[in-house]
């Protein structure tokens, strides 16, 4: 017997959470794209998709975020902070890859200097993951030692029932338990079986890839040029990525008042690393693509002991020229073996 939550109780759950002061967020299929968005009742959710087009990252690290407002006066400068949103949130129906992405980036945003814009939201959010029962050709979590039902980064794991009438509930963290205490009486004991999780075939040999990437000789390999030749240098892969975290700081305003903002930025852009002198350490697209791969699978794990990739496959799914991490790592696997 396990505790289950029935789908038809979802309306009640949303209502309970909302009246407990939480904003309820879930996968929503919009007219043109799907994303994690605020839902007002059970009907707002769409659990049918493989995963939303946009990752959950944007709820913690928005594409543009005001950091402070400045006002310049005659002999002083006033600044006012824009604190991150204060309300508690529950993200119901996150995918395991998205949730792991958040856990991965925690190490970066908390490295020495703690980024409050990220952590405030992290601390105020409960992540309820729903294990995947289907996957597409681009899913690759299993190649990264993760799984459709990973609990990394999530507070509560739900497993869809085989009979499709709800989910098995597995509370992972205290924060999750606390959020589900609000709806405890809506849960019930049941012997319903969980549906099998999606079969995600292993796309590449990660260990082989890492070995290849760590070999300094391969840094200058002509492989990089070949694999990235068709890269057009846009940022759609990095912006949709649940773990890509690079940003720019920009002022908007004039000499008297304005706002300093934190905006997404991407290592795919030529200007990303360009020095004032005109010298650019990564002046070619191949150097930039190499940086992206190296950073995710060599440098980042070297620092934080975790790959900066959770295998959602959005980079390959959305690439205008059908590139992506999967293809590159598949090719590297071949080179290494």
């Amino acid at each position, binding site marked *: 017997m396990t505790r289950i939550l029935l789908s038809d109780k979802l309306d009640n759950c949303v209502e309970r959470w909302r009246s407990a002061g939480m*904003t309820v*967020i879930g996968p929503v299929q919009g007219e043109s794209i799907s994303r994690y968005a*605020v839902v007002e009742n059970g009907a707002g959710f769409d659990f049918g998709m493989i995963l939303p087009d946009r990752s959950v990252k944007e*709820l913690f690290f*928005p594409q543009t*975020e*005001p950091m402070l*407002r400045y006002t310049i006066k005659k002999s002083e400068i006033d600044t006012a902070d*824009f*604190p*991150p*949103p204060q309300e508690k*949130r529950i993200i119901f129906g996150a995918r395991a890859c998205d949730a792991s992405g958040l856990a991965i980036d925690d190490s970066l945003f908390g490295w020495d200097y703690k980024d409050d814009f990220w952590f405030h939201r992290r601390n105020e959010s409960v992540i309820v993951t729903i294990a995947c029962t289907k996957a597409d050709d681009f899913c690759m979590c299993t190649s990264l030692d993760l799984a459709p039902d990973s609990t990394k980064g999530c507070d509560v794991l739900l497993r869809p029932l085989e009979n499709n009438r709800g989910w098995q509930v597995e509370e992972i963290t205290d924060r999750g338990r606390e959020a589900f205490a609000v709806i405890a009486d809506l849960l019930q004991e049941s012997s319903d079986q969980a549906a099998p999780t999606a079969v995600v075939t292993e796309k590449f040999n990660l260990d082989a890839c890492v070995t290849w990437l760590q070999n300094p000789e391969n840094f200058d390999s002509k492989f990089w040029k070949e694999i990235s030749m068709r890269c057009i240098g846009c940022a759609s892969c990095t912006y949709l990525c649940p773990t890509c975290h690079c940003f720019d700081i920009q002022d*908007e305003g004039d000499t008297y008042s304005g*706002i300093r903002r934190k905006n997404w930025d991407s290592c795919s852009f030529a200007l990303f690393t360009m020095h004032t002198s005109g010298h650019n350490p990564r002046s070619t697209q191949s150097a930039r693509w190499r940086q992206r791969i190296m950073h995710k699978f060599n440098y980042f794990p070297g620092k934080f002991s975790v790959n900066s990739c959770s295998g959602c496959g959005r980079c390959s799914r959305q690439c205008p020229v059908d590139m992506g991490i999967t293809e590159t790592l598949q090719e590297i696997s071949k080179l290494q073996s």
Partner: protein
Amino acid sequence: MSEQQFEPNIIAFVCTYCTYAGADLAGTSRLKYAPNVRIVRLPCTGRISPMFILKALQKGADGVLVSGCHPGDCHFTHGNYHARRRWMVFRSLLEFTGISPERVKYSWISAAEGSKFADLINSVTEDIRKLGPFDQYQQMIKDAQSPATL
């Protein structure tokens, strides 16, 4: 809102050889015209990039006026012909994205047309006053300055 009538902010990009001289003439002739227009003087209408118009809107203008020499009178022989095509294209682009062409006006005013300048400023000001503040755009500006919500 108070009972006071709405005073639009209008930015005028004008060429120095014709319209600016025309504005000068209006001034020296002591013609009275609406004080709502701020003039930015440029060498030629050919120098007036649509970027200027976007910038004016971004900074909260309710209307924009672009003005230069009559066709054939350009100091640089054909700067205004180039400008004319650009305006046509830009105007229809703005229209397609939902910005009323009434907010961005174009005119030819020569150095001798001081009274046309004064009349134009009055009529443009009146037109834009009738349209009211550019609320939609101002809302976008305001949204851009407000804190993140999620």
